[in-house]
């Protein structure tokens, strides 16, 4: 067959530019890696807080995918290839991880429609959105529905009441508690909120640390959630889906500031580990601040971006109006990212190092 073939022309596809080999990576693979890395965190949350998160994940994925498909239809864009990049699924799962596990279903719907429609697709879809969709939706709901959004369950170590799968569904879909239970029996303040309240009541750290909710690193149960997200984050680092700069800079600056204030006044500031293992610090550092679309992209810029988030998290947690601050901090730095990028361009080969 060879000699005849030797004179046949190559197919017309051969006008494409180099490189010609198989590509190393694809967007959907990146997103699937992120989803894979979220699994330990989701499982640990489910272990400590019941079925709520899994139900929320299912609902959020459903709503986000439907919203994305709808907008794509309206924008006359190909629906299936875009859904196939799984970015809407990642947004949905991150959102579900951030909200209370018993959030009414219509708030999840509202959040996902807000995230996909307004924050993502109105700006042009994946890659064009200036804000992290999951965090923008979270903040929107937190401001509009503060009660529902801060109604957290107690971890199962601290309560005898565990919602079954069916009870969780009923609670989320109809707001119906099991007949023999009240919210007071089920819910509990998050460690950050509890700490905040108790410090406002002029308790000192020595006393607070004796509280039943206090664990070894963060709040009981919560510290395991943070560790699970940390493990997922390390997996992402290992698979080179994210780089070390943003998480290290964010956790580093948080650790540094918390450590500094702890040294100055150990009775009124919790130890730095508590900051890292409470709230959304780990989830934020590895999964949210590292959202490539909305983060800084230059190496030095990523260090500044991460460090500033850490500073804001500490400032808002310590002196601000909200117990946790990861979402606010990330959104604030999202606005600053283009400016940071502009001023932190690397020195190009052969241009002489500025250093």
């Amino acid at each position, binding site marked *: *067959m*060879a*000699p*005849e*073939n*030797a*004179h*046949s*022309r*190559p*197919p017309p*596809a*051969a*006008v*494409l*530019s*180099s*490189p*010609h*080999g*198989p*590509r*190393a*990576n*694809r*967007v959907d*693979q*990146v997103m699937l890696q992120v989803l894979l890395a979220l699994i330990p965190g989701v499982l640990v949350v489910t272990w400590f807080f019941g079925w709520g998160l899994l139900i929320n994940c299912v609902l959020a994925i459903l709503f986000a995918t439907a919203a994305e498909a709808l907008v794509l239809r309206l924008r006359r864009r190909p629906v299936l*290839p875009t859904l196939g*990049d799984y*970015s809407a699924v990642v947004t949905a799962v991150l959102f579900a991880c951030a909200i209370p596990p018993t959030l009414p279903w219509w708030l999840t719907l509202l959040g996902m429609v807000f995230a996909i429609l307004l924050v993502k697709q109105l700006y*042009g*879809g*994946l*890659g*064009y959105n200036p804000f992290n969709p999951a965090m923008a939706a979270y903040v929107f709901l937190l401001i509009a529905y503060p009660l529902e959004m801060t109604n957290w369950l107690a971890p199962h170590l601290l309560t005898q009441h565990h919602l079954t799968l069916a009870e969780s569904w009923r609670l989320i879909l109809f707001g119906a508690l099991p007949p023999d239970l009240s919210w007071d029996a089920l819910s509990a303040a998050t460690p950050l909120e509890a700490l905040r309240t108790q410090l406002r009541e002029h308790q000192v750290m020595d006393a607070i640390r004796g509280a039943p909710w206090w664990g070894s690193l963060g709040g009981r149960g919560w510290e395991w959630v943070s560790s699970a997200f940390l493990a997922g984050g390390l997996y992402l680092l290992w698979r080179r889906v994210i*780089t070390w700069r943003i998480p290290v800079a964010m956790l580093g600056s948080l650790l540094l500031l918390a450590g500094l204030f702890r040294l100055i006044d150990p009775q009124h500031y919790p130890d730095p580990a508590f900051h890292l293992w409470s709230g959304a610090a780990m989830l934020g550092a590895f999964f949210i601040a590292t959202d*490539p*679309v909305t*983060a800084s*992209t*230059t*190496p030095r810029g*990523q260090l500044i971006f991460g460090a500033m988030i850490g500073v804001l998290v500490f400032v808002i947690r310590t002196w601000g109006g909200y117990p946790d601050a990861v979402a606010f901090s990330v959104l604030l730095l999202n606005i600053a990212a283009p400016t940071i*990028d502009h001023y932190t*361009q*690397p*020195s*190009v*080969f*052969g*241009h*002489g190092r500025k250093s």
Partner: protein
Amino acid sequence: MSRPDLPTPQLWTFHGGLHLPDEKALSSDQPIELLPLPPLLIIPLRQHIGAPARPGVRVGDQVGKGQVIGTADGYVSAAVHASSSGTVIAIEERLIPHPSGLPAPCVVIATDGQDAWAPLPAPLTDYRHLDPALLRERVHWAGVVGLGGGAFPTSVKLRSERHIETLIINGAECEPYITCDDRLMRERSVQVLEGARIIRTLLGAERVLIGIEDNKPAAIAALSAALADTGPDTHIRIIPVPTLYPSGGERQLIRILTGREVPTRGLPAQIGVACQNVATTAAVADAVLLGRPLIARVVTVTGRAVARPGNLTVPIGTPLSHLLAYCGGFREVPRRLLCGGPMMGFTLSDLEIPVTKAFNCLLALTAAEAPDPGPALACIRCGRCAEVCPVRLLPQQLYWHARAKAFDRAQAYNLFDCIECGCCAQVCPSHIPLVQYYRFAKNAVWAQEEERRKADQARARHQARQARQARLEQERQSKLRKKREILDETTAAAVPGGVADGDLDARRALIEAAKQRAAAKKAAAQSSTEPVDQG
């Protein structure tokens, strides 16, 4: 590895780079084979950077092997030679291996099968004691150009205004698949070393560093053995460098071996370095020591679509179909047919295109080796491109600006420092053809500059014309004014009291009076002469 008594040389790194599947095993074990003569040689007159060669033969001429058929047209140009003996049957435009896919002037020779050499110049074996100008002239005559792909005339690079401290011989061969330099280093190691010595003599360099990626241990061993055989030479060192694409880029290899960065828009000579490819070095040795011009080169024919991949010594001008037929043709219809490697090579549209001096690899990739990357998705700004960029550019920002046709912004992000190595596009999860965007932007900037140059030229011409016309008009006016002044002076002198300018009646009267006076004078003169005649 090079010399056991010397400490391991310090190596530096460059930013980014990629570990790619090297795919060299397909052809690296195939010794170089001499390709039989093709019936037809198509020899482009421009196979190098610079001015095309001037054709020195006519249709119908008999040419001998090694005869100059195109002379170098200027300093930055290179001669081309007949790769075998035969008859010139055409001098016309033919397709050549070029990314543009456009035809260019070629000399077409029907070979006679004799392969008879034309008279060759005498070997210059005693090069150490010869005038360097003579050696450069020989290399210039031999039409040697950079065989690593750059195709810059080598004779130009053999002279430097600045002191050259280090001569780097580039045997990195970092592109996947390509093995021609590997085989050349193994099989012609003596020529490579001789060439290195000649170039070192010419440049007066203190040391020669031969950089070879460590995925070619056989080449490193062969060169080391040849260096040991040819006696102690403390000036030459063979240095294995870590395999990392694109360490074979000139600036990258200089960085790895010397720790210094060639200034942007500058030449290696500015930091006291000269760089030559191993095949070029061997070609210099052939020209000086054997008096042979560059009429053949080693070409790797590879890719899984080729039935029998191998390395061939190919006469310049041989059509690709001839190479392929020798290698058993295609095993399957290739998805892509390339000149060069998968990272920087360009697609070929035809198999009657000839091999040129810079043609290092004919790569036929199957659909599995060059899968369709699919439609480009939106950039998710992941920054992998910036991580792998060996020039520390921000490929993503370049892409946004190139796409928005904001070419001045792209230039502010150092568009022209891009070496088009393809690393960014290779790792892009959105499969955006980034390099294509940069080429597009560069071409647009060049076109804009050309346009601006033309517009400036036209404006200058127009302004010169206007100035000339104004000057001529002024000259005319001043002449007229002078005439008028003279006229005025004479009339004023003739009529005391003067005459108002433009007083036509008065002037006419004056003219009339003058005429009458002249007539009277004439008449008077006539009347006064007549008596003399009569008398």
